[in-house]
């Protein structure tokens, strides 16, 4: 009964703080980066179609959707390969998780972000094409994809991603999430919802153990 159109931009108060502006800049830069990456993929796809099999595979060999259920971690509506995107193609995490450095929320890529590349990239193997088609249909149906959440933190704990990126650098995602770049399907390496996991690290690094830093 409630209306379901996606949110469209509105006028912002003109004197918003600077982080917002810089955020947009960073985003634009990342889009650019993405475009380059897309070109590379496209080129690879066109130039050497035949030796797709022979090419040295970083991470596990091509998998089919059917296997994904055998893999660790929850089965996702689309068999999105972090090992390919982050591993082989070396896409920056922030290309998709675009707000991780500025907000407590890492941000889940909008469908438009996926389509940015997959307008061109149709996938080499049969299996990949199947998955990418799912994406395209979703896009044409204007139907967002409901990913299954892997990492959840209790709602009474506030985890500011940006503070941790600021402190540990943009490559530090693996500290908590494990080597996502090697995962065909994302699974929980560390129980990030386990306070022991947080506090141990905070003690090692001699950073605040004050309860009210996370709990309020």
């Amino acid at each position, binding site marked *: 009964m409630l209306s379901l159109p996606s949110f469209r931009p509105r006028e912002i108060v003109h004197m918003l703080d600077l982080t917002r502006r810089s955020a947009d800049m960073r985003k634009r830069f990342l889009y650019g980066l993405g475009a380059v990456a897309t070109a590379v993929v496209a080129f690879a796809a066109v130039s050497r179609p035949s030796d797709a099999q022979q090419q040295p595979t970083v991470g596990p060999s091509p998998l089919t959707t059917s296997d994904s259920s055998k893999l660790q971690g929850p089965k996702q509506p689309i068999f999105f390969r972090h090992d390919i995107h982050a591993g082989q193609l070396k896409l920056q995490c922030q290309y998709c998780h675009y707000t991780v450095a500025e907000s407590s929320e890492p941000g889940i890529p909008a469908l438009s972000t996926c389509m940015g590349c997959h307008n061109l990239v149709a996938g080499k193997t049969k299996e990949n094409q199947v998955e990418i088609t799912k994406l395209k249909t979703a896009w044409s149906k204007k139907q967002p994809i409901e990913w299954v959440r892997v990492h959840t933190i209790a709602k009474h704990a*506030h985890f500011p991603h940006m503070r941790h990126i600021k402190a540990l650098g943009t490559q530090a995602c693996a500290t908590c999430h494990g080597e996502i770049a090697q995962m065909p399907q994302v699974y929980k390496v560390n129980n990030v919802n386990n306070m022991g996991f947080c506090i141990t690290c905070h003690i090692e690094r001699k950073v605040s153990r004050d309860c009210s830093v996370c709990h309020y």
Partner: protein
Amino acid sequence: MADESTTPSVDRRHFLKVLGVSGVGAAALTGCSTDRVTKLVPYLVQSEDQVPGIATNYASTCTECSAGCGLHVRTREGRPVKLEGNPEHPTNAGTLCARGQAGLQSLYNPDRLKAPMARNAAGGFDEIKWDDAIARLAAKVGSAGGKFAVLNGYGPSTFTTLLQDWTKALGGTHVAFEPFAREAERAANQKTWGRDDLPTYDFAAATHIISFGADFLETWGPVVEQQRGFAASHGFHDGTMSRHVFVGPRLSLTGANADEWLMVPAGSEAQVALAIAHVVAERKGHPLAGMLMAYMPETVAKDVGLTSQQLHDLADAFIASGPSLAVAGAVPTQHRGAVDLCHAVNLLNEVAGNVGKTVLFGAGPAVTDGFGRTRDLFASMGRGELQVVLVHEANPLYALPKSGKFLESFKKVGFKVSTASVLDDTAAQCDLILPNLHSLERWDDLRPRPGITGTLQPVVEPIFPVMHTGDVLLKVSKAIGGAVAGFNAASFEEHLKAEWQKRAASGKAGDFDSYWRGALGRGGIYEAAPAAAKPALVSGATQITFTKPAFDGTGDYVLMPYPSSMYYDGRGANKPWLHENPDPITKITWQSWVELHPDTAAKLDVREGEIVELTSPHGSIRSQVYVYAGVHPGVLAMPLGLGHTAYGRYAKDRGVNALDLIGAADSDTFLPYVSTKVSVKTTGDYRKAARVDGEARQLGRGIVQSMPLAYAAKGMTPEESYKAAGHVEGEKNTERELAAIEGFAEDQAKATQYGDYANPHPKWGMAVDLSRCTGCSACVTACYAENNIPTVGEEQVFRRREMSWLRIERYWEGGEAGEPLAVSFAPVMCQHCDNAPCEPVCPVYAAYHTPDGLNGQVYNRCVGTRYCSNNCPFKVRYFNWLKYNEVAFPEPLNLQLNPDVTVRARGVMEKCTFCIQRIRGAQNTARLEDREVRDGEIKTACMQSCPSGALSFGNVKDPEAAVIKWKRDPRGYHMLEETNVRPSVTYLARVLHQPPVATPAGEAH
């Protein structure tokens, strides 16, 4: 909503969609399992200005009353979570009253209509399709010929203009409707100066204010602006402050903030005004003095129950220094002599030379058509002259007295249409309801007064698929064609832009886009009002004809209905925030009542809560008694705003409507609210009042301390002033204050080796200036909104289980054995004591001290022993006795929840945290920018909303911080000093024009 995957709900996907991927945390229950399967729903297209986890502010305009304050709508993941004042708006300059903030609950109101409704044969309503609805309206309106009228409650705006033109094109009548329209004042201005408009009053410039029953701090005029002005002049500053005298039968919140209250019988205010005017005129040698001979203090004194000396003194004080100001005309003085009263007050201002100084014409509030035209309109309805009536943003069948037979007339109309978004009293009588978008969902603008044009923009996707009435008009026009074929804009948005383009063109404002975007960004266009020449008295003005106003009925008591601070004209009655924000004076929640003077109560032998039956020639109602020494023995006062017959679950059948007792027949220009005498009959029934105050007197505990102006000006501390007044000395707080500022971290570090107390940290502190606080309670609603505080409902308030983290304590002084009644207010929140008694007694460290000086409360660690509350001398800790978090936010009210704050579960203790989420947020931002948090960067919700600017917050270790300057003020004191709990909140004593009534702590009575 944390378990949104386990509670199946139609709205869930939408909820997540609106939220994007985050913010589900908003509705999380503490300690709940998080191992359920939850989904991440990404945006299709990421909006540029929405960053998940970061709030975005949109400028808009408040439509909760006609003042049209500017809004900043704080949105998270595309949904508004809080309404705050727009700092750039000249009216409210960043602050906002309780009613304005509660506007959020009309956006998310669970009783909003989800589709157009049409009356069916059975007399009920059916949901219908929009096309169908528009077709039906078009058919009726098209065939109505001229027999068509519009009753429009929305202020001057592009929309209203459109509606007017459209109605005119169809040959119909358009009537602007405003329940508390200031008709009497307009009539008086006509009489005095020949002006048909209203002035603005400069309270900030006035050194002496006399209010004749005008509640300028509550419901009369642009209250936020007036409160800002009043606080500026009446708040103690540079050794001085203005003087405020309140003349009237009932001590309202405005009266409670006066330095002196002159209790006069209802209807005799004008005589007082004229008497003062007479003396002033004589002193100033003003020609009018002669005309006023009939009103020498000596002659009127007895009539008004004052001594002539009092009147002389008042007059002298009035012209003693600087510009003064006299105001009148609010609902509690709208008796049949109201025009005379306002005229008299005008003359008083005239002779005192205030016109042009504090009484400024030119930029007055926009005027409406007034009661006269509304009544005529209904009359023609009654004569069956109308086929179609459209009611827009108005609820006349509630706001007009029953005795006027308005309902009967309304029923005579063939086809009645309403655009109400909730099924209110009027809509319930209509044949077709076309729910309008909420003001936060639609394109619009508003011109509350010359020079100010506020803009409204959709800041959220419509919560329900309803339609902008502007679009409805355009669609209907398309369907009808003919006379209205001209109204052919593609959408109202286009029409609005077109209108603004014209405006931009006329105003030689560069390219339209930047002009438009600029306006939206600032929330409107603010220009200096066209200056008006100082008006001159018209010839007839000096013919003063004062006759005592007549009252209908033969009862012993004059009935005085007054607009409730929270419910206003009734539109607040469907908002739980306003129900649970107690009335500032009586501290009653969720109910209406009738106020009796103790003598009256004794005479009738009734006690608080007993139900009495009030009968007037126009009707009879039963209401519960509240005994109040602040009301004239000859008067019964009743708040307006409750007693709805519809209007949703929170309003329907709650309380009574005092308007049922008053007549509406005779007066021409305005509705005479105070025009009936009622007789009282006891019924023997009883209904407990859900009051939130326990003992209403301070018992000499120095909770709200005050000192005479003379001493304050000398820079004395409350203790010194108290001593100077010849009392035993109380305790000094200075060295404790110092310890709180300097020695704090060390103390904590000594106290425990754990935590990094020894490291350098800020220490957060607050100061409250009681000479500025008016007790308006805007901060209370702000706190509810910011901190996801659940409203618990009347049944729970009976047990005093309200969760109000911040409460305004109201204490009576005097009022017994003939001594004058004085009222004092103090906002009391968690004092964040350095030496907090709640901390050591918690067995699980849920209550503990943070390194930055906060008194932390870890909800998810709390097991609920409640020892902390027992041991808290201020009793500012609140316990979740039942699953409030599950009942308080029926969908879609849950969308209002602030994602930054955990929603507390049953069995957990909660309390004020100094808005720690805002502190942490600012610290995160500062850290990302490699800097320290700036002073003033963190504003707590209460401080942010306060129209009086009575609160200050900051790092007390920063010698430059504003809060330190406040804390060093000699007026500073701590509540309950002798408990040595070392609060982080410093109160600055009230300053009075008379010797203090409250005695400092440490003094037994």
